[in-house]
C-alpha cells in the first residue's frame, strides 16, 4: 500500500472510513445495528457501506439489543468480528448482561480457552431535548468492568485509528462517540492505521496546570486553555482517550511538572472517571500536588429536557476556567460562567435545527 496521505475529514467521515477499511481488509468483520443501512446512515457514519459490502456484512437488526448482543457474542466466538451499533448509549444498557457479565468474563472464566473479538459501539446523546433517557453518559459503568476495553476518541484521527484497533482487538471493546464530535474536522490519514488502545494523548502542552478531559470535554478544555493563556496561565490538556486500560504515565509526568489537576468529564462525578483520575493522581503523585484536585462534571441529577435547565446542566469551558482559577488560589470571576450572547447550548452542530 502507498504511504498514507493525510487530509481533513469530519469525525463522522473518519468513522465511516475506518469501517470501510476494516470491512475491506477482513471478511470476518460485520456491522449490525438498528438503522445501520438506513438512508440517514447512522449520523452519516455508515452511509452506503451496505451498498459497498453487501447486506450480509452491513445489516439492520430487530429492535432487540440484549438478544442481538448475545447472538453476536456467539458469532465472535465462532469466527466473526462483529460491531454492534447503538445510536444512543441508553439503548445499549438493555444489553448489560451480554456486555458486562458475558463478553467481559469470557477469556478469564474459561482460562483463556476462547477469544471474544466484538465491538460495542455507542453514541452519547446530548442537546435538543434528548432528555433523561436519550443522553446518559455512563461510560464509567463500562470502565468499571475488567475484561472490557473502553475507548472514547476525541479527534477524527483517533476515531478512525481506535475504531480499527478495536475491531482488530481480540477482546470486547466498548467504543463511545459523543454526538457533538461528529461534525468536527481534523487530519485523518488514508488507508489502514491504528491508534493503540491504552495511552492518553497530549492535546496541548503547558506548565501551570494539568487539565485531564474526556471525549467532547477535551474541546471545552482546549477552549479553556486558550482563555487561560490570555491571562498568562499555561494549561496542559490531556485527552484520556482510553478509559480501560487506563495508562497514566502521561498524566503523572504532567502532574510532576504542574502540580495542579482539574478533571473535566462528560458524566456524573460520583463514582465516575474523574474520581478515578483523582484517586490515581493522589496515590501515585501525591507529593507533586500543590493544591486539591478539582472536578468539572455533570450535576447529580438526570438530564432535563427544557433548554434553560439543560443550559444550567452541562459544564462548559468557563467551568473549567473557574476550576483552574480555584486550583491556583485566584478569586472566582463570575464572567467565566456567563453565556456569550447568541450561543445555543442545545445544538450538536451549528447547522442543526432539529428534530433529533
Amino acid at each position, binding site marked *: 500500500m502507498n504511504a498514507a496521505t493525510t487530509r481533513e475529514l469530519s469525525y463522522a467521515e473518519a468513522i465511516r472510513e475506518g469501517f470501510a477499511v476494516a470491512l475491506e481488509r477482513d471478511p470476518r468483520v460485520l456491522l449490525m445495528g438498528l438503522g445501520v443501512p*438506513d438512508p440517514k446512515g447512522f449520523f452519516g457514519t455508515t452511509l452506503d457501506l451496505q451498498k459497498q459490502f453487501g447486506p450480509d456484512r452491513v445489516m439492520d437488526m*430487530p*429492535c432487540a439489543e440484549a438478544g442481538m448482543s448475545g447472538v453476536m457474542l456467539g458469532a465472535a466466538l465462532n469466527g466473526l468480528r462483529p460491531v454492534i451499533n447503538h445510536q444512543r448509549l441508553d439503548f445499549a444498557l438493555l444489553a448489560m448482561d451480554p456486555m458486562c457479565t458475558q463478553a467481559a468474563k469470557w477469556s478469564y472464566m474459561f482460562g483463556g480457552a476462547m477469544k471474544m473479538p466484538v465491538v460495542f459501539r455507542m453514541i452519547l446523546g446530548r442537546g435538543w431535548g434528548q*432528555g433523561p*433517557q*436519550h443522553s446518559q453518559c455512563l461510560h464509567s459503568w463500562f470502565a468499571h468492568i475488567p475484561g472490557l476495553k473502553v475507548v472514547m476518541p476525541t479527534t477524527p484521527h483517533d476515531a478512525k485509528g481506535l475504531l480499527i484497533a478495536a475491531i482488530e482487538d481480540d477482546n470486547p471493546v466498548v467504543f463511545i462517540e459523543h454526538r457533538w464530535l461528529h461534525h468536527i474536522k481534523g487530519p485523518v490519514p488514508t488507508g489502514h492505521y491504528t491508534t493503540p488502545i491504552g495511552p492518553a494523548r497530549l492535546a496541548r502542552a503547558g506548565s501551570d496546570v494539568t487539565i485531564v478531559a474526556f471525549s467532547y470535554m477535551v474541546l471545552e478544555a482546549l477552549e479553556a486553555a486558550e482563555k487561560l493563556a490570555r491571562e498568562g496561565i499555561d494549561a496542559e490538556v490531556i485527552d484520556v482517550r482510553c478509559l480501560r486500560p487506563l495508562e497514566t504515565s502521561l498524566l503523572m509526568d504532567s502532574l510532576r511538572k504542574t502540580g495542579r489537576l482539574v478533571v473535566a468529564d462528560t458524566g456524573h462525578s460520583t463514582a465516575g472517571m474523574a474520581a478515578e483520575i483523582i484517586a490515581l493522581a493522589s496515590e501515585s503523585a501525591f507529593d507533586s500536588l500543590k493544591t486539591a484536585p478539582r472536578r468539572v462534571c455533570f450535576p447529580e441529577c438526570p438530564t432535563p*429536557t427544557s*433548554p434553560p*435547565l439543560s443550559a444550567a446542566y452541562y459544564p462548559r469551558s468557563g467551568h473549567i476556567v473557574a476550576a483552574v482559577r480555584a486550583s491556583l488560589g485566584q478569586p472566582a470571576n463570575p464572567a467565566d460562567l456567563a453565556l456569550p450572547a447568541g450561543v445555543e447550548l442545545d445544538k450538536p452542530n451549528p447547522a442543526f435545527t*432539529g428534530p433529533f
Partner: protein
Amino acid sequence: MIPHAPADLGAALLESMVRIRKVEEAIAAHYPEQKMRCPVHLSIGQEAASAGVCAALRPDDLAMSGHRSHAHYLGKGGNLNAMIAEIYGKETGCCHGRGGSMHLVDLAAGFVGAVPIVGSTIPIATGLAFADRQLKRDRVTVAFLGEAATEEGVFHESVNFASLHKLPIVFVCENNLYSVYSPMSVRQPAHREVWQLAAGHGVTAHQGDGNDPLAVYELARASVAQARSGQGPVFLELKTYRWREHCGAGFDNHIGYRTEAEYQSWRERDPIATFERRLQAAGTFDAARFAQFNARLDAEIAQAFAEADHAPFPAATTLMNHVYAAS
C-alpha cells in the same frame, strides 16, 4: 371523555381523531419556530387506534405508552395545555419541563407515563395491572406499543407473565410497518403476523384495521371486558401507517425508505376522511355539531399554544428538584 351512548359514538370517535390530528398538525406548523426544542414523534395517520381504544376505557382505567404518545395521552383525556407546555419545555408542562415530548404523564387522566426506550413501559404497565389484580380493583390497563417493541425481550417476558397471572391488561400494538426507517422485512420473518407472537404466549390475540375507529372500538370493548372480568389479557395488532417523518414535523418519503405508491395508498385510507364519509352515508353525521366542535377545538388549540409560548421556563435554581421524591 367519550360517552358510551351508541348514538353518540360515531361523532365522539370522529371528534377524538380530529382533535389528535389538529393538535399534531399545530405542533408540525409551529415546530420550525425552534421553540419546541425536543424530538417529536407524530401519530398523524394513526389516530383511529387511540380514539377507538380510549373510547372503550373508563376514565379510571390506566394507560402507558412510548415515544409516539401524543395521541394516547390525548385520547385518554390528558391535559392538552400541560402537554404543549411540556413540549415547549415550560414549568407548566406535565413534567415541569424535565421530560419534553417523549415523556408525558397525566395521573388524573389515568395516563401513567410515556418514555422513549422502546418496550420499556410494557413490563411497567403489566405491573400496574398486577397491582390492580392483587388489590382487587376492577381496573384495566392498556399498554400502547409499536410493532418494533414486540422484538424486545421485555415484551415476551411481560406478556408471558400477564398470561400466567391472567392480568387485566390489553396490549395495543400499532403496526405501522416501520421502525424508524427499517421495514418489517429486515426485522421480522415474512408470513408470521405480529399478533401470532402474543397468541404463542397463550393470550387472546386479534388483528384489526387500525384505520377504522369503529372496528378498533369494537375490538377494544370486547378486549377490555375480557381483561376486566378476570379472563386474562388480550393483545391487539392494529394495522396502520404513519404519514409524517419518524421523528420531527416534516415528511420523509424523499429519503427513499418507502415508496410513494405505498404512502399514497395509505393516504387514501385516511382514518378521518373515511370515517366522516361513512357517517355521512349512514346519515349520522351531524354537520352543525361538527362545525361547532371544530370551532371550539381550534380555539382550544390556539389557546394551548399561546399559553405554552408565554409560560415561564423552569428556573435554573430548580435543576436538582425531584431527583428524589419528597417524603
